[in-house]
């Protein structure tokens, strides 16, 4: 049993899940916004990165990790809401490339402003958890206190979002505003506010993700720290289906595990290539995602 737990394949699965939950969170953040406003938020990673900088650069080193995390989440909420009110609201009903262009421009502005204020140097966050793997019979298990903390945080965030959407009146209004805005407006739902709230939630999920990514000793916090993570998160969301939160979560974890095996058995340069190949194949076979019920485009 103990040799099984320290074996190469189990190590790959565990490491894959640790990476995969991060992709799942990014994918979830994208899905939350896509479902309600039909906008793919290319600035998702950059918005989250700014929230993390606000939490950790403004307050550090005087305050604790958890207070900084809370500030980052609050900043995420504010940034998300402000983005929806100021930039996104102008884009509803425009040709579908306009939001893409606007969000890419916003991404560029955010990354440049962050680099102008906080420089491009990587900044380590003092995590309360060790990144050294646990030992079993003097062999490392591919799981450290920090990795476990990542997974647990991700599960908590997903549960909170799922609970909010499934079991509360607010969640019902959010879903109604996303699925049938006209009808829900007639029934008294403030659709505009719900859309803003959707962006705030998405941005807060992003802030948690960015804190986790930046807490990792190897990446640290840089203005472009979220670029690569965003690419994988988008691939997960597109494979799972941008309309399906469950699909996003599952495909994020599956992607993490598969890519961990690719990196271990093939070559670390092949990881993003395999991910791109999976994206291309899945989009050709099921353009709307693996987990969405195939829906014809409305004309």
């Amino acid at each position: 049993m103990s040799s099984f737990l320290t074996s190469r394949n189990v190590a790959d699965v565990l490491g894959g899940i640790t990476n995969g939950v991060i992709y799942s969170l990014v994918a979830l953040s994208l899905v939350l916004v896509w479902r309600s406003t039909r906008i793919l938020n290319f600035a998702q990673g950059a918005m989250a990165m700014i929230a993390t900088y606000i939490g950790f650069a403004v307050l550090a080193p005087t305050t604790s990790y958890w207070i900084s995390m809370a500030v980052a989440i609050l900043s995420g909420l504010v940034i998300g809401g402000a983005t929806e009110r100021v930039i996104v609201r102008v884009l509803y009903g425009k040709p579908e490339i306009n939001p893409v262009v606007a969000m890419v421009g916003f991404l560029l502005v955010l990354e440049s402003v962050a680099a102008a204020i906080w420089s491009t140097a990587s900044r380590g966050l003092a995590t309360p958890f060790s990144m050294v793997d646990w030992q079993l019979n003097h062999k490392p298990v591919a799981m450290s206190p920090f990795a476990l903390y990542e997974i647990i945080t991700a599960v908590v965030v997903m549960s909170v979002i799922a609970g909010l959407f499934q079991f509360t009146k607010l969640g019902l209004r959010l879903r109604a505003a996303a699925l049938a805005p006209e009808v829900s407006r007639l029934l008294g739902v403030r659709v505009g506010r719900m859309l803003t709230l959707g962006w705030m939630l998405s941005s807060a999920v992003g802030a948690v993700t960015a804190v986790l990514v930046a807490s990792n000793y190897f990446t640290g916090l840089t203005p472009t720290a979220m670029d690569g993570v965003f690419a994988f998160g988008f691939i997960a969301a597109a494979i799972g289906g941008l309309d399906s939160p469950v699909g996003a979560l599952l495909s994020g974890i599956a992607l993490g595990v598969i890519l961990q095996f690719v990196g271990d058995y093939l070559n670390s340069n092949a990881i993003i290539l395999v991910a791109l190949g999976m994206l291309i194949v899945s989009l050709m076979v099921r353009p709307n995602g693996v987990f969405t019920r195939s829906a014809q485009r409305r004309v």
Partner: protein
Amino acid sequence: MRGVRSNQRVVAGTALGVAAVLASILGVGTARAATAFSIASVVLVACATVLSSSEFRRNHPVAARAAISLLAVDVSIVLTAFFSATVDDNLAIGAAMSIVLLGLSFLTGSSGQISLGNGAFMGVGAFTVAVWANHHPTTPIAVVLILAVVAGALVGLLLGLPATRLRGPYLAGMTLAFSVAFGAVLNLFGTWTGGDSGLQLPTAVNAPAWVLHFFKAGTSSLTTNSVWLVDITIVTAGIALFFMANLFASRTGRAMRLVRDNDVAAELVGISLPRARVIAFIVSASYAALGGGLWTLINNAVTPSTYGFALSVTILSLVVIGGIGTIPGALIGGLIYAFAANVIAWFTAHTGLNPQGNVASQLNGIIFGGLLVLTILFAPTGIAGFVRRRFAAWRAR
């Protein structure tokens, strides 16, 4: 010259041409330089004369487009003789960039798609040129550039296949993933591409002997070794412009604009959507590869870090600010790119920012990103669209 009859126009044109030749001979010291300037001014006057006739523009659209391209190339090449070497270099970089922008403009203007991977497609062309030139240093550069275009088209086809079934944001996300993955691709084939450090060209590109022999005279020669590459880039950009103008106006181009405006209607009149989308994507990838190949020639080297995601975003901002989906927009974008660094350096110097500081080094991104957001929110047609509307309003008065 509206209202002037055609024979009068010919007379006026001939007179202008003779005057230009005389001015060249009197104004320039040596016989060879005078010959060169005379040829240039005769071409200029001929093109302008032909283009001034609206009848000609209507009846011979292809020839008119050729004349416009020739005129632009002619003026640019003459100007390179007067600019400093730095400005020439900027112009060449910008001319190559405007080829890339033409490609992206076609993709968006004709099929309503957007690509965030054109920086990586440039990289495909750039590395094709560098790798080929390192293995076969004697190949003529025209052949090498055609190889770059072919390589770009092949990669474009590969990535364009799913594009047949994708709409706006999905395609943008996929091309984003490609531009993030491009560095890893280069590393995977590190033995060919030189890994992180990139490649040097084995020899600098030099002008052929006969060109040097003909023009190497006096002080203000039109073509010496230093401006040879600049001239090649400008001529290539002119050819690319000519093809693109014809493509925009062709049956394919018109079909694609219908795809952009209403893809359901396009399908109903028998246009194959997948085919139209893949063609647009391949054209845009080939144009990007051509621009990248020219960059390799101009810099005499290629580094992978140039062709990252940031370049793709820059390309997108240039094409949107210039005027997305239009040919003038692409040319304006290329000009902006050529001189943006100078303008920002001037700005830094005059505002007293520390040129090595954080803010100054990020000004480029802040300005381009901000302009990109503002343009798409408040003037989605860009500079070209703005000018066209002003001009139309002025004509209507």
